[in-house]
Protein backbone atom coordinates (compact mmCIF):
# COMPACT_ATOMS: atom_id res chain seq x y z
CA UNK A 1 0.00 0.00 0.00
CA UNK A 2 2.76 2.40 0.91
CA UNK A 3 3.97 4.35 -2.13
CA UNK A 4 7.54 3.50 -3.07
CA UNK A 5 10.16 5.90 -1.84
CA UNK A 6 11.53 8.37 -4.38
CA UNK A 7 14.32 10.87 -3.89
CA UNK A 8 13.03 13.29 -6.49
CA UNK A 9 10.69 15.36 -4.33
CA UNK A 10 13.39 15.89 -1.69
CA UNK A 11 15.96 16.92 -4.28
CA UNK A 12 13.35 19.38 -5.54
CA UNK A 13 12.71 20.67 -2.02
CA UNK A 14 16.43 21.31 -1.71
CA UNK A 15 16.63 23.12 -5.02
CA UNK A 16 13.57 25.21 -4.25
CA UNK A 17 15.04 26.19 -0.89
CA UNK A 18 18.20 27.37 -2.67
CA UNK A 19 16.14 29.33 -5.17
CA UNK A 20 14.15 30.84 -2.33
CA UNK A 21 17.29 31.96 -0.51
CA UNK A 22 18.61 33.48 -3.72
CA UNK A 23 15.55 35.73 -3.92
CA UNK A 24 16.71 37.57 -0.81
CA UNK A 25 19.75 39.09 -2.46
CA UNK A 26 20.15 41.91 -0.01
CA UNK A 27 20.43 39.39 2.78
CA UNK A 28 23.23 37.63 0.91
CA UNK A 29 25.30 40.78 0.58
CA UNK A 30 24.79 41.85 4.17
CA UNK A 31 25.76 38.45 5.54
CA UNK A 32 29.05 38.55 3.63
CA UNK A 33 29.64 42.15 4.72
CA UNK A 34 28.86 41.30 8.33
CA UNK A 35 31.42 38.47 8.32
CA UNK A 36 34.08 40.85 7.00
CA UNK A 37 33.30 43.47 9.62
CA UNK A 38 33.52 40.87 12.37
CA UNK A 39 36.79 39.48 10.98
CA UNK A 40 38.25 42.96 11.15
CA UNK A 41 36.91 43.72 14.64
CA UNK A 42 38.03 40.42 16.13
CA UNK A 43 41.48 40.85 14.65
CA UNK A 44 41.72 44.24 16.38
CA UNK A 45 40.53 42.79 19.68
CA UNK A 46 43.00 39.90 19.65
CA UNK A 47 45.92 42.09 18.57
CA UNK A 48 45.17 44.50 21.40
CA UNK A 49 44.70 41.74 23.98
CA UNK A 50 47.86 39.91 22.94
CA UNK A 51 49.88 43.14 23.08
CA UNK A 52 49.00 43.58 26.77
CA UNK A 53 49.08 39.99 27.97
CA UNK A 54 51.32 36.98 27.73
CA UNK A 55 50.17 34.82 24.84
CA UNK A 56 48.87 31.35 25.77
CA UNK A 57 51.43 28.82 24.65
CA UNK A 58 49.18 26.78 22.36
CA UNK A 59 47.64 29.74 20.56
CA UNK A 60 50.05 32.40 19.33
CA UNK A 61 48.57 35.54 17.77
CA UNK A 62 48.57 34.29 14.16
CA UNK A 63 46.86 31.07 15.30
CA UNK A 64 44.08 32.87 17.15
CA UNK A 65 43.44 35.19 14.22
CA UNK A 66 43.25 32.18 11.94
CA UNK A 67 40.96 30.54 14.49
CA UNK A 68 38.48 33.39 14.69
CA UNK A 69 38.47 34.06 10.95
CA UNK A 70 37.77 30.39 10.10
CA UNK A 71 35.13 30.39 12.87
CA UNK A 72 33.36 33.36 11.31
CA UNK A 73 33.41 31.71 7.89
CA UNK A 74 31.98 28.52 9.42
CA UNK A 75 29.33 30.71 11.00
CA UNK A 76 27.95 31.49 7.53
CA UNK A 77 26.70 27.91 7.55
CA UNK A 78 26.46 27.09 11.24
CA UNK A 79 24.52 30.14 12.36
CA UNK A 80 21.56 29.30 10.13
CA UNK A 81 18.55 27.80 11.84
CA UNK A 82 17.79 25.30 9.06
CA UNK A 83 14.73 23.95 10.77
CA UNK A 84 13.06 27.28 11.48
CA UNK A 85 10.54 26.25 8.83
CA UNK A 86 9.15 23.74 11.32
CA UNK A 87 8.56 26.48 13.87
CA UNK A 88 6.90 28.68 11.27
CA UNK A 89 4.67 25.86 10.11
CA UNK A 90 3.64 25.02 13.65
CA UNK A 91 2.91 28.65 14.28
CA UNK A 92 0.77 29.19 11.21
CA UNK A 93 -0.74 25.71 11.29
CA UNK A 94 0.74 25.07 7.86
CA UNK A 95 2.16 21.79 9.12
CA UNK A 96 -1.30 20.28 8.51
CA UNK A 97 -1.06 20.77 4.74
CA UNK A 98 2.33 19.05 4.73
CA UNK A 99 0.85 16.02 6.46
CA UNK A 100 -1.80 15.95 3.73
CA UNK A 101 0.88 15.35 1.11
CA UNK A 102 2.55 12.03 0.36
CA UNK A 103 5.89 13.10 1.80
CA UNK A 104 8.01 12.18 4.81
CA UNK A 105 7.78 15.46 6.66
CA UNK A 106 11.06 15.44 8.66
CA UNK A 107 12.96 14.47 5.52
CA UNK A 108 11.29 17.37 3.75
CA UNK A 109 12.46 19.70 6.54
CA UNK A 110 15.98 18.30 6.31
CA UNK A 111 16.05 18.70 2.52
CA UNK A 112 14.75 22.25 2.72
CA UNK A 113 17.22 23.18 5.45
CA UNK A 114 20.12 21.64 3.56
CA UNK A 115 19.21 23.59 0.44
CA UNK A 116 19.32 26.76 2.46
CA UNK A 117 22.67 25.78 3.99
CA UNK A 118 24.23 24.78 0.66
CA UNK A 119 23.29 28.14 -0.76
CA UNK A 120 24.97 29.92 2.13
CA UNK A 121 28.00 27.60 1.99
CA UNK A 122 28.68 28.91 -1.50
CA UNK A 123 29.17 32.33 0.09
CA UNK A 124 32.15 31.03 2.06
CA UNK A 125 34.44 31.27 -0.97
CA UNK A 126 33.95 34.99 -1.75
CA UNK A 127 33.95 35.78 1.97
CA UNK A 128 37.23 33.92 2.37
CA UNK A 129 38.84 35.74 -0.54
CA UNK A 130 37.74 39.10 0.81
CA UNK A 131 38.81 38.17 4.33
CA UNK A 132 42.30 37.45 3.02
CA UNK A 133 42.57 41.14 2.19
CA UNK A 134 42.15 41.92 5.89
CA UNK A 135 43.95 39.09 7.69
CA UNK A 136 46.47 36.37 7.08
CA UNK A 137 45.18 32.82 7.60
CA UNK A 138 47.41 29.83 8.31
CA UNK A 139 46.76 26.83 6.09
CA UNK A 140 47.48 23.43 7.68
CA UNK A 141 48.65 20.27 5.91
CA UNK A 142 46.31 18.08 3.84
CA UNK A 143 45.60 15.50 6.58
CA UNK A 144 44.62 18.20 9.05
CA UNK A 145 42.60 20.05 6.44
CA UNK A 146 40.71 16.90 5.46
CA UNK A 147 40.03 16.05 9.11
CA UNK A 148 38.88 19.61 9.68
CA UNK A 149 36.30 19.36 6.88
CA UNK A 150 35.07 16.02 8.19
CA UNK A 151 34.79 17.47 11.69
CA UNK A 152 33.04 20.56 10.31
CA UNK A 153 30.46 18.25 8.68
CA UNK A 154 29.89 16.43 11.96
CA UNK A 155 29.64 19.76 13.76
CA UNK A 156 26.98 20.80 11.27
CA UNK A 157 24.93 17.71 12.07
CA UNK A 158 25.25 18.41 15.81
CA UNK A 159 23.96 21.92 15.13
CA UNK A 160 21.14 20.57 12.98
CA UNK A 161 20.00 18.24 15.78
CA UNK A 162 20.10 21.02 18.38
CA UNK A 163 18.07 23.34 16.14
CA UNK A 164 15.61 20.59 15.29
CA UNK A 165 15.07 19.73 18.95
CA UNK A 166 14.57 23.39 19.74
CA UNK A 167 12.02 23.88 16.99
CA UNK A 168 10.24 20.70 18.02
CA UNK A 169 9.55 22.34 21.37
CA UNK A 170 7.11 24.54 19.46
CA UNK A 171 4.84 21.49 19.12
CA UNK A 172 3.94 22.07 22.77
CA UNK A 173 4.68 25.71 23.48
CA UNK A 174 4.27 27.32 20.03
CA UNK A 175 6.67 30.03 21.20
CA UNK A 176 10.36 29.25 21.54
CA UNK A 177 11.92 32.69 21.38
CA UNK A 178 13.22 32.82 24.96
CA UNK A 179 14.63 29.29 24.76
CA UNK A 180 16.30 30.11 21.50
CA UNK A 181 17.96 33.16 23.01
CA UNK A 182 19.33 31.07 25.85
CA UNK A 183 20.64 28.38 23.51
CA UNK A 184 22.20 30.97 21.19
CA UNK A 185 23.89 32.58 24.13
CA UNK A 186 25.16 29.29 25.52
CA UNK A 187 26.33 28.22 22.05
CA UNK A 188 28.16 31.49 21.56
CA UNK A 189 29.91 31.04 24.86
CA UNK A 190 30.49 27.28 25.03
CA UNK A 191 30.64 26.46 21.34
CA UNK A 192 34.01 28.10 20.82
CA UNK A 193 32.88 30.29 17.95
CA UNK A 194 34.09 33.54 19.48
CA UNK A 195 36.47 32.60 22.27
CA UNK A 196 38.56 29.40 21.99
CA UNK A 197 37.62 27.11 24.86
CA UNK A 198 41.29 26.35 25.59
CA UNK A 199 41.84 29.82 26.99
CA UNK A 200 38.96 29.44 29.47
CA UNK A 201 39.88 28.90 33.15
CA UNK A 202 40.36 25.21 33.95
CA UNK A 203 36.98 24.73 35.64
CA UNK A 204 35.00 26.41 32.84
CA UNK A 205 36.94 24.37 30.28
CA UNK A 206 35.74 21.17 31.96
CA UNK A 207 32.16 22.34 31.75
CA UNK A 208 32.49 23.51 28.14
CA UNK A 209 34.08 20.33 26.85
CA UNK A 210 31.44 18.22 28.57
CA UNK A 211 28.65 19.94 26.62
CA UNK A 212 27.58 19.12 23.04
CA UNK A 213 28.09 22.74 21.92
CA UNK A 214 31.86 22.23 21.82
CA UNK A 215 31.30 19.64 19.08
CA UNK A 216 29.88 22.35 16.81
CA UNK A 217 32.72 24.87 16.49
CA UNK A 218 35.48 24.07 18.93
CA UNK A 219 36.41 20.58 17.72
CA UNK A 220 36.88 21.41 14.00
CA UNK A 221 38.61 24.70 14.84
CA UNK A 222 41.06 23.19 17.33
CA UNK A 223 41.88 20.55 14.71
CA UNK A 224 42.48 23.31 12.17
CA UNK A 225 44.87 25.35 14.33
CA UNK A 226 46.67 22.22 15.51
CA UNK A 227 45.72 22.25 19.20
CA UNK A 228 44.14 18.83 18.70
CA UNK A 229 47.04 16.72 17.45
CA UNK A 230 46.61 13.96 14.81
CA UNK A 231 46.85 11.19 17.45
CA UNK A 232 43.69 12.60 19.07
CA UNK A 233 41.71 13.02 15.83
CA UNK A 234 39.86 9.72 16.20
CA UNK A 235 38.78 10.50 19.76
CA UNK A 236 37.66 14.03 18.82
CA UNK A 237 35.59 12.86 15.84
CA UNK A 238 34.25 9.97 17.93
CA UNK A 239 32.95 12.39 20.55
CA UNK A 240 31.22 14.43 17.85
CA UNK A 241 29.62 11.27 16.48
CA UNK A 242 28.52 10.36 19.99
CA UNK A 243 26.71 13.68 20.32
CA UNK A 244 25.03 13.22 16.92
CA UNK A 245 23.68 9.85 18.06
CA UNK A 246 22.45 11.16 21.41
CA UNK A 247 20.91 14.37 20.03
CA UNK A 248 19.55 12.55 16.98
CA UNK A 249 17.77 10.14 19.29
CA UNK A 250 16.26 12.97 21.33
CA UNK A 251 15.23 14.73 18.11
CA UNK A 252 13.53 11.57 16.81
CA UNK A 253 11.63 11.04 20.04
CA UNK A 254 10.53 14.65 20.14
CA UNK A 255 9.41 14.57 16.52
CA UNK A 256 7.39 11.41 17.10
CA UNK A 257 5.70 12.78 20.19
CA UNK A 258 5.08 16.11 18.46
CA UNK A 259 3.66 14.56 15.29
CA UNK A 260 1.46 12.34 17.41
CA UNK A 261 0.22 15.41 19.22
CA UNK A 262 -0.72 16.95 15.89
CA UNK A 263 -2.69 13.90 14.78
CA UNK A 264 -4.36 13.46 18.14
CA UNK A 265 -4.85 17.05 19.18
CA UNK A 266 -5.11 18.70 15.82
CA UNK A 267 -2.04 20.88 16.42
Amino acid at each position, binding site marked *: *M*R*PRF*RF*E*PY*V*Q*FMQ*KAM*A*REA*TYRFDVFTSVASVLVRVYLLRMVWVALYARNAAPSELPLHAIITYSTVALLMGLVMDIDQTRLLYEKLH*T*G*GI*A*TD*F*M*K*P*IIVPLYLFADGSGEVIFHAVLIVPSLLLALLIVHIDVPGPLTLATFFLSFGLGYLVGFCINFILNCVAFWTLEIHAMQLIVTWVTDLFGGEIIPLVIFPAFLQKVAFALPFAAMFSTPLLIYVGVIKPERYAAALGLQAFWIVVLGLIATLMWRAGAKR*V*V*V*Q*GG
Partner: protein
Amino acid sequence: MAIIEAVGLRKVFRSLERQPGLGGAVRALFSRTFVDKVAVDDVSFSLDAGELVGYIGPNGAGKSTTIKMLTGILVPTAGTLHVAGIVPYQNRMANAANIGVVFGQRSQLYWDLPLRESFELLRAIYDVPRARYLENMKHFAEILDLERFLSTPVRQLSLGERMRGDFAAAMLHDPKIVFLDEPTIGLDVIAKEAIREFISMVNKERGTTVILTTHDLADVERLSRRIILIDEGTVIYDGSLERLREEYGTHRTLVVTLAESYPELAVPGAELESRDHNTVRLRFDRRRLTAEALIRRVTERYQIIDVAITEPDIDSIVRRIYLEGYHEGVVGAPS
Protein backbone atom coordinates in the same frame (compact mmCIF):
# COMPACT_ATOMS: atom_id res chain seq x y z
CA MET B 1 -19.84 2.08 -5.00
CA ALA B 2 -19.06 4.08 -1.92
CA ILE B 3 -15.75 5.91 -2.12
CA ILE B 4 -16.04 7.43 1.34
CA GLU B 5 -17.59 5.51 4.20
CA ALA B 6 -17.78 7.02 7.66
CA VAL B 7 -19.50 5.19 10.49
CA GLY B 8 -19.97 6.65 13.96
CA LEU B 9 -17.06 9.03 13.58
CA ARG B 10 -16.15 10.78 16.80
CA LYS B 11 -13.38 13.12 17.85
CA VAL B 12 -12.77 14.43 21.32
CA PHE B 13 -10.07 17.03 21.97
CA ARG B 14 -8.49 17.41 25.35
CA SER B 15 -7.60 20.98 26.03
CA LEU B 16 -6.30 23.11 28.82
CA GLU B 17 -8.91 24.95 30.80
CA ARG B 18 -7.96 28.58 31.01
CA GLN B 19 -8.80 30.65 34.04
CA PRO B 20 -9.72 34.24 33.36
CA GLY B 21 -7.37 37.12 34.08
CA LEU B 22 -3.69 37.47 34.79
CA GLY B 23 -3.95 35.44 38.01
CA GLY B 24 -5.50 32.62 36.03
CA ALA B 25 -2.76 32.77 33.45
CA VAL B 26 -0.10 32.57 36.15
CA ARG B 27 -1.90 29.74 37.91
CA ALA B 28 -2.14 27.89 34.61
CA LEU B 29 1.67 27.82 34.48
CA PHE B 30 1.70 25.53 37.48
CA SER B 31 -1.54 23.67 37.80
CA ARG B 32 -3.45 22.57 34.79
CA THR B 33 -6.96 21.31 34.47
CA PHE B 34 -8.05 19.65 31.29
CA VAL B 35 -11.45 19.69 29.68
CA ASP B 36 -12.71 17.38 26.99
CA LYS B 37 -14.30 19.03 24.03
CA VAL B 38 -16.37 16.94 21.68
CA ALA B 39 -15.68 18.33 18.21
CA VAL B 40 -17.34 15.54 16.29
CA ASP B 41 -19.87 13.50 18.24
CA ASP B 42 -21.32 10.94 15.90
CA VAL B 43 -21.01 11.39 12.17
CA SER B 44 -21.93 8.76 9.62
CA PHE B 45 -22.28 9.16 5.90
CA SER B 46 -21.45 7.43 2.71
CA LEU B 47 -20.43 9.02 -0.56
CA ASP B 48 -20.45 7.48 -4.01
CA ALA B 49 -17.66 8.06 -6.47
CA GLY B 50 -18.38 11.12 -8.57
CA GLU B 51 -20.71 12.77 -6.07
CA LEU B 52 -20.48 16.43 -5.17
CA VAL B 53 -21.73 17.08 -1.70
CA GLY B 54 -22.00 20.25 0.35
CA TYR B 55 -20.87 19.76 3.93
CA ILE B 56 -22.59 22.55 5.78
CA GLY B 57 -22.72 23.70 9.36
CA PRO B 58 -22.26 26.71 11.60
CA ASN B 59 -18.83 27.65 12.94
CA GLY B 60 -17.53 25.05 15.36
CA ALA B 61 -19.96 22.40 14.16
CA GLY B 62 -17.14 19.96 13.45
CA LYS B 63 -16.72 20.40 9.69
CA SER B 64 -12.99 21.00 9.64
CA THR B 65 -12.38 18.25 12.16
CA THR B 66 -14.22 15.81 9.91
CA ILE B 67 -12.18 16.94 6.91
CA LYS B 68 -8.96 16.53 8.89
CA MET B 69 -9.93 12.97 9.78
CA LEU B 70 -10.73 12.23 6.15
CA THR B 71 -7.33 13.53 5.08
CA GLY B 72 -5.59 11.35 7.65
CA ILE B 73 -4.03 14.04 9.80
CA LEU B 74 -6.37 13.47 12.74
CA VAL B 75 -6.97 10.13 14.38
CA PRO B 76 -10.65 9.60 15.25
CA THR B 77 -11.45 8.90 18.89
CA ALA B 78 -14.03 6.32 17.78
CA GLY B 79 -15.73 5.10 14.64
CA THR B 80 -14.52 3.69 11.35
CA LEU B 81 -13.49 5.50 8.24
CA HIS B 82 -12.57 4.40 4.74
CA VAL B 83 -11.49 6.72 1.96
CA ALA B 84 -11.08 4.97 -1.40
CA GLY B 85 -10.63 1.72 0.51
CA ILE B 86 -7.91 3.13 2.75
CA VAL B 87 -8.07 3.94 6.45
CA PRO B 88 -6.62 7.45 6.24
CA TYR B 89 -4.86 7.74 9.59
CA GLN B 90 -3.30 4.28 9.27
CA ASN B 91 -1.93 4.96 5.84
CA ARG B 92 -1.49 8.68 5.54
CA MET B 93 0.89 8.57 2.57
CA ALA B 94 -1.25 6.28 0.39
CA ASN B 95 -4.35 8.29 1.26
CA ALA B 96 -2.56 11.54 0.46
CA ALA B 97 -1.89 10.32 -3.07
CA ASN B 98 -5.64 9.86 -3.62
CA ILE B 99 -6.82 13.20 -2.36
CA GLY B 100 -6.52 16.87 -3.18
CA VAL B 101 -7.17 19.61 -0.66
CA VAL B 102 -7.94 23.29 -0.95
CA PHE B 103 -8.23 25.56 2.05
CA GLY B 104 -9.63 28.99 1.41
CA GLN B 105 -7.79 30.34 4.41
CA ARG B 106 -4.45 28.66 3.85
CA SER B 107 -2.37 28.25 0.73
CA GLN B 108 -0.37 25.17 -0.09
CA LEU B 109 1.68 27.08 -2.62
CA TYR B 110 5.25 28.08 -1.87
CA TRP B 111 5.19 31.66 -0.78
CA ASP B 112 8.51 32.90 -2.11
CA LEU B 113 8.49 31.04 -5.41
CA PRO B 114 6.79 31.77 -8.70
CA LEU B 115 3.53 29.87 -9.10
CA ARG B 116 5.02 27.69 -11.82
CA GLU B 117 7.69 26.37 -9.44
CA SER B 118 5.08 25.25 -6.94
CA PHE B 119 3.43 23.21 -9.67
CA GLU B 120 6.79 21.68 -10.61
CA LEU B 121 7.35 20.73 -7.00
CA LEU B 122 3.90 19.15 -6.72
CA ARG B 123 4.55 17.20 -9.89
CA ALA B 124 7.60 15.70 -8.20
CA ILE B 125 5.77 15.06 -4.92
CA TYR B 126 2.88 13.22 -6.54
CA ASP B 127 5.02 11.60 -9.25
CA VAL B 128 2.76 12.85 -12.03
CA PRO B 129 3.95 11.63 -15.44
CA ARG B 130 5.41 14.52 -17.44
CA ALA B 131 2.92 14.24 -20.31
CA ARG B 132 -0.07 14.17 -17.99
CA TYR B 133 1.35 17.10 -16.05
CA LEU B 134 1.71 19.24 -19.16
CA GLU B 135 -1.76 18.30 -20.31
CA ASN B 136 -3.31 19.25 -16.97
CA MET B 137 -1.31 22.45 -16.78
CA LYS B 138 -2.48 23.50 -20.21
CA HIS B 139 -6.08 22.70 -19.40
CA PHE B 140 -6.10 24.43 -16.02
CA ALA B 141 -4.19 27.44 -17.25
CA GLU B 142 -6.89 27.89 -19.84
CA ILE B 143 -9.92 27.53 -17.57
CA LEU B 144 -8.46 29.40 -14.63
CA ASP B 145 -6.61 31.97 -16.73
CA LEU B 146 -3.31 31.30 -14.98
CA GLU B 147 -0.94 32.17 -17.80
CA ARG B 148 -0.67 35.86 -16.83
CA PHE B 149 0.76 35.22 -13.40
CA LEU B 150 2.54 31.87 -13.66
CA SER B 151 5.91 33.58 -13.20
CA THR B 152 4.82 35.81 -10.31
CA PRO B 153 5.91 34.88 -6.78
CA VAL B 154 2.89 33.63 -4.85
CA ARG B 155 3.21 36.31 -2.17
CA GLN B 156 2.53 38.97 -4.81
CA LEU B 157 -0.66 37.38 -6.11
CA SER B 158 -4.11 38.72 -5.31
CA LEU B 159 -6.40 36.47 -3.30
CA GLY B 160 -8.37 35.54 -6.40
CA GLU B 161 -5.23 34.64 -8.33
CA ARG B 162 -3.81 32.69 -5.42
CA MET B 163 -7.01 30.67 -5.04
CA ARG B 164 -6.99 29.82 -8.71
CA GLY B 165 -3.41 28.69 -8.30
CA ASP B 166 -4.38 26.62 -5.27
CA PHE B 167 -7.13 24.88 -7.19
CA ALA B 168 -4.82 23.97 -10.02
CA ALA B 169 -2.27 22.75 -7.46
CA ALA B 170 -4.82 20.50 -5.76
CA MET B 171 -5.96 18.93 -9.04
CA LEU B 172 -2.61 18.47 -10.73
CA HIS B 173 -2.27 14.81 -9.75
CA ASP B 174 -5.84 13.86 -10.75
CA PRO B 175 -6.99 13.02 -7.22
CA LYS B 176 -9.99 10.74 -6.84
CA ILE B 177 -11.40 12.94 -4.12
CA VAL B 178 -11.02 16.63 -3.37
CA PHE B 179 -11.79 18.35 -0.11
CA LEU B 180 -12.60 22.00 -0.45
CA ASP B 181 -12.70 23.93 2.80
CA GLU B 182 -14.38 27.30 2.26
CA PRO B 183 -12.80 27.74 -1.15
CA THR B 184 -14.64 30.92 -2.09
CA ILE B 185 -14.15 32.81 1.14
CA GLY B 186 -13.24 36.45 0.59
CA LEU B 187 -13.46 36.29 -3.19
CA ASP B 188 -15.29 38.77 -5.38
CA VAL B 189 -18.27 37.60 -7.43
CA ILE B 190 -16.30 37.07 -10.62
CA ALA B 191 -13.57 35.04 -8.95
CA LYS B 192 -16.24 33.06 -7.09
CA GLU B 193 -17.94 32.18 -10.33
CA ALA B 194 -14.63 31.14 -11.94
CA ILE B 195 -13.92 28.83 -9.01
CA ARG B 196 -17.43 27.35 -9.08
CA GLU B 197 -17.10 26.76 -12.78
CA PHE B 198 -13.84 24.92 -12.18
CA ILE B 199 -15.28 22.76 -9.40
CA SER B 200 -18.21 21.86 -11.59
CA MET B 201 -15.90 20.95 -14.48
CA VAL B 202 -13.68 18.78 -12.31
CA ASN B 203 -16.70 16.95 -10.94
CA LYS B 204 -18.54 16.48 -14.24
CA GLU B 205 -15.74 15.93 -16.72
CA ARG B 206 -13.26 14.09 -14.54
CA GLY B 207 -15.70 12.35 -12.24
CA THR B 208 -13.83 13.60 -9.19
CA THR B 209 -15.67 13.19 -5.91
CA VAL B 210 -15.98 16.56 -4.19
CA ILE B 211 -16.68 17.44 -0.58
CA LEU B 212 -17.34 21.13 -0.29
CA THR B 213 -17.38 22.94 3.02
CA THR B 214 -18.70 26.45 2.83
CA HIS B 215 -20.65 29.18 4.54
CA ASP B 216 -21.65 30.62 1.22
CA LEU B 217 -24.76 28.67 0.40
CA ALA B 218 -24.76 30.08 -3.09
CA ASP B 219 -21.81 27.72 -3.70
CA VAL B 220 -23.98 24.81 -2.68
CA GLU B 221 -27.03 25.94 -4.64
CA ARG B 222 -24.92 26.32 -7.72
CA LEU B 223 -22.95 23.09 -7.39
CA SER B 224 -24.43 20.30 -5.37
CA ARG B 225 -27.65 18.40 -5.24
CA ARG B 226 -26.87 16.73 -1.96
CA ILE B 227 -26.04 18.41 1.29
CA ILE B 228 -25.03 17.10 4.66
CA LEU B 229 -25.91 19.45 7.48
CA ILE B 230 -23.90 19.10 10.63
CA ASP B 231 -24.39 20.79 13.96
CA GLU B 232 -22.77 20.18 17.33
CA GLY B 233 -20.85 17.28 15.89
CA THR B 234 -23.78 15.32 14.53
CA VAL B 235 -25.39 15.02 11.14
CA ILE B 236 -28.80 16.68 11.33
CA TYR B 237 -29.75 16.41 7.68
CA ASP B 238 -28.45 14.36 4.78
CA GLY B 239 -30.33 14.60 1.55
CA SER B 240 -31.17 16.67 -1.44
CA LEU B 241 -31.36 20.41 -1.44
CA GLU B 242 -34.78 20.21 -3.10
CA ARG B 243 -36.25 18.16 -0.29
CA LEU B 244 -35.02 20.66 2.23
CA ARG B 245 -36.48 23.45 0.22
CA GLU B 246 -39.82 21.67 -0.05
CA GLU B 247 -39.98 20.86 3.62
CA TYR B 248 -38.93 24.27 4.77
CA GLY B 249 -40.24 26.20 1.86
CA THR B 250 -43.85 25.79 2.87
CA HIS B 251 -43.83 29.15 4.51
CA ARG B 252 -43.75 32.39 2.67
CA THR B 253 -43.54 35.88 3.99
CA LEU B 254 -45.89 38.71 3.17
CA VAL B 255 -44.18 42.06 3.51
CA VAL B 256 -46.72 44.80 4.12
CA THR B 257 -46.12 48.54 4.24
CA LEU B 258 -48.80 50.12 6.38
CA ALA B 259 -50.25 53.57 5.92
CA GLU B 260 -50.01 54.27 9.61
CA SER B 261 -48.51 52.50 12.61
CA TYR B 262 -50.78 50.10 14.38
CA PRO B 263 -49.44 49.35 17.84
CA GLU B 264 -51.23 46.05 18.20
CA LEU B 265 -51.18 44.18 14.97
CA ALA B 266 -52.52 40.67 14.44
CA VAL B 267 -53.75 38.79 11.40
CA PRO B 268 -55.36 35.36 11.83
CA GLY B 269 -53.44 32.58 10.07
CA ALA B 270 -50.18 34.51 9.91
CA GLU B 271 -47.33 34.96 12.31
CA LEU B 272 -45.70 38.33 12.86
CA GLU B 273 -42.10 37.70 11.94
CA SER B 274 -40.71 41.18 12.46
CA ARG B 275 -41.67 44.80 12.18
CA ASP B 276 -39.70 47.85 11.32
CA HIS B 277 -41.64 51.13 11.64
CA ASN B 278 -44.55 50.68 9.30
CA THR B 279 -43.19 47.65 7.50
CA VAL B 280 -44.26 44.30 8.90
CA ARG B 281 -43.32 40.81 7.82
CA LEU B 282 -46.04 38.18 8.14
CA ARG B 283 -45.10 34.53 7.79
CA PHE B 284 -47.75 32.12 6.56
CA ASP B 285 -48.16 28.52 5.47
CA ARG B 286 -49.02 28.58 1.81
CA ARG B 287 -50.93 25.29 2.03
CA ARG B 288 -53.31 26.62 4.61
CA LEU B 289 -53.75 30.09 3.37
CA THR B 290 -53.43 31.57 -0.09
CA ALA B 291 -51.58 34.80 -0.49
CA GLU B 292 -54.72 36.34 -1.89
CA ALA B 293 -56.72 35.38 1.22
CA LEU B 294 -54.06 36.74 3.52
CA ILE B 295 -53.85 40.04 1.70
CA ARG B 296 -57.62 40.28 1.97
CA ARG B 297 -57.48 39.68 5.70
CA VAL B 298 -54.84 42.38 6.08
CA THR B 299 -56.67 44.96 4.00
CA GLU B 300 -59.88 44.28 5.90
CA ARG B 301 -58.15 45.33 9.09
CA TYR B 302 -55.53 47.89 8.14
CA GLN B 303 -54.71 50.66 5.70
CA ILE B 304 -51.88 49.50 3.50
CA ILE B 305 -49.62 51.14 0.91
CA ASP B 306 -47.69 48.24 -0.54
CA VAL B 307 -47.36 44.43 -0.40
CA ALA B 308 -44.71 41.96 -1.51
CA ILE B 309 -44.29 38.21 -1.12
CA THR B 310 -40.91 36.60 -0.49
CA GLU B 311 -39.99 32.95 -0.92
CA PRO B 312 -37.55 31.51 1.61
CA ASP B 313 -34.03 31.31 0.22
CA ILE B 314 -31.64 28.57 1.20
CA ASP B 315 -29.84 30.93 3.57
CA SER B 316 -32.93 31.57 5.63
CA ILE B 317 -33.84 27.87 5.64
CA VAL B 318 -30.44 26.91 6.94
CA ARG B 319 -30.46 29.77 9.42
CA ARG B 320 -33.73 28.46 10.75
CA ILE B 321 -32.35 24.94 11.03
CA TYR B 322 -29.28 26.19 12.90
CA LEU B 323 -31.55 27.99 15.35
CA GLU B 324 -34.33 25.48 15.79
CA GLY B 325 -32.76 22.20 14.75
CA TYR B 326 -33.97 20.07 11.90
CA HIS B 327 -37.30 18.35 12.24
CA GLU B 328 -38.24 15.63 9.82
CA GLY B 329 -41.55 16.40 8.19
CA VAL B 330 -41.60 19.95 9.46
CA VAL B 331 -44.07 20.30 6.63
CA GLY B 332 -47.08 19.16 8.61
CA ALA B 333 -46.07 20.63 11.93
CA PRO B 334 -47.91 23.74 12.92
CA SER B 335 -45.52 26.59 13.52
